[in-house]
């Protein structure tokens, strides 16, 4: 089957439609899962989950520190910006870029020094490179029920979609036959 728009001619193939549907379903499911995960799980629990799923500990720790200190860094940057804007009365672009460069440098030095203090606080509390946690997740009956519910819902959605697609007719012929 082909479609003409002005001088453009598009050939619609079975494989093309299938790939299109594949991408749509995958991206919708990914967004659906992302929204469900972020609205039902706190970030610390999410990190713990990643740890239990054997995601490298170093990566999980880096994410944990990012989550903890991103707001502190944003505050630090805001303070620098505020201090600049209070003493800024208009200057040449070259001068402004120089000041922004200084600010980035200062932020980097402060972050570096903070990282050293945090590391000191960690080692004096016995840190030896391994991130430990007291929190344990247990699989309860509610979790099993939730999982069964999700699987049943997904099966229903997917079978409903397949059923619908099978009944779509183009010019009196079945979609698959028309292609």
């Amino acid at each position, binding site marked *: 089957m082909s479609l003409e728009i002005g001088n453009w001619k598009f050939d619609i193939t079975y494989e093309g439609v299938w790939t299109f549907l594949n991408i749509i379903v995958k991206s919708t499911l990914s967004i659906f899962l992302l929204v469900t995960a972020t609205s039902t799980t706190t970030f*610390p629990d999410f990190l713990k989950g990643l740890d239990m799923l054997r995601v490298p500990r170093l990566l999980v720790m880096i994410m944990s520190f990012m989550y*903890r200190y991103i707001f*502190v860094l944003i505050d630090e940057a805001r303070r620098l910006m505020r201090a600049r804007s209070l003493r800024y009365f208009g200057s040449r672009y070259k001068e402004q870029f120089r000041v922004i460069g200084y600010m980035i440098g200062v932020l980097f030095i402060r972050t570096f020094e903070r990282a050293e203090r*945090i590391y*000191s606080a960690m080692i*004096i509390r*016995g*840190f030896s490179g391994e991130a430990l946690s*007291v929190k*344990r997740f247990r699989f309860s009956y509610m979790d099993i029920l939730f999982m069964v519910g999700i699987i049943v819902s997904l099966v229903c959605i997917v079978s409903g979609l397949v059923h619908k697609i099978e009944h779509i007719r183009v010019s009196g012929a079945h979609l698959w036959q028309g292609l």
Partner: protein
Amino acid sequence: MARIIKVSKLNYRYPDGTIGLKDVSFEVEEGETMVIIGANGTGKSTLFMNLMGILDGDGYIEVVGLMLNKTNLKDIRRGMGMVFQNPDDQLFCPTVMDDVSFGPLNLGLNADQVTEASQKALALVDLQGYESRTSHHLSFGEKKRAAIATVLSMNPGILLLDEPTSGLDPRSVSKFINILYTLKSQGKTLLIVTHDLFLTQEIADRVLVFSEEKKPVAVGDYKEILNNYDLLLKNNLVHQHRHRHDEVVHDHEHRHGYIHEH
């Protein structure tokens, strides 16, 4: 009382050559509260970093009979905890519970012991129910209390507190002093760095005064030190400036509780 800390002829120089500590010697008895006072930049925090083995100065440091060196650093840190001045440096985990349990977990305690120690520490600083709160959402006073809980959960015999009341409002200061009283009554040895003379008067058994030359210039009973105006004035711990009392304007030194004639 037995000697628990001994520092002898300790010197420290920063990598850029700046002098951090100069010929520091003092001793602390078990169960006593020693407050180290001094103006800004006199080396008080640097002293704590050396006591914890984070900075490596020249001199002799002995803690609970052990000479501080790289081989016994872990043993010393099991018995001596330090609370940093800025609680954001101390609270690095996503939740309060993660932070408070960090120390006991690294000590090798099992999950039940860790939970018990953490709950006990949080109760002591009046932060029950804050376990799952994220650290960056706490107020500054709560952060300070959570920071002390992160060390209390390890149950150390010696506590080093760097400027514990700085930046706190009066009610939070009062809460903090109550916590320190409780720790004192439990027999903990407290070393507190501050330039808050009110806190010193409230909690100190003995006071060590640091001069702006980065070395101790006096040590003694808190009453004796706090009543030595010349010593406090010389070391930038009290100040004189023009002062108004209704119609009377004159100069005099400032110190908490100092009553004077107008």
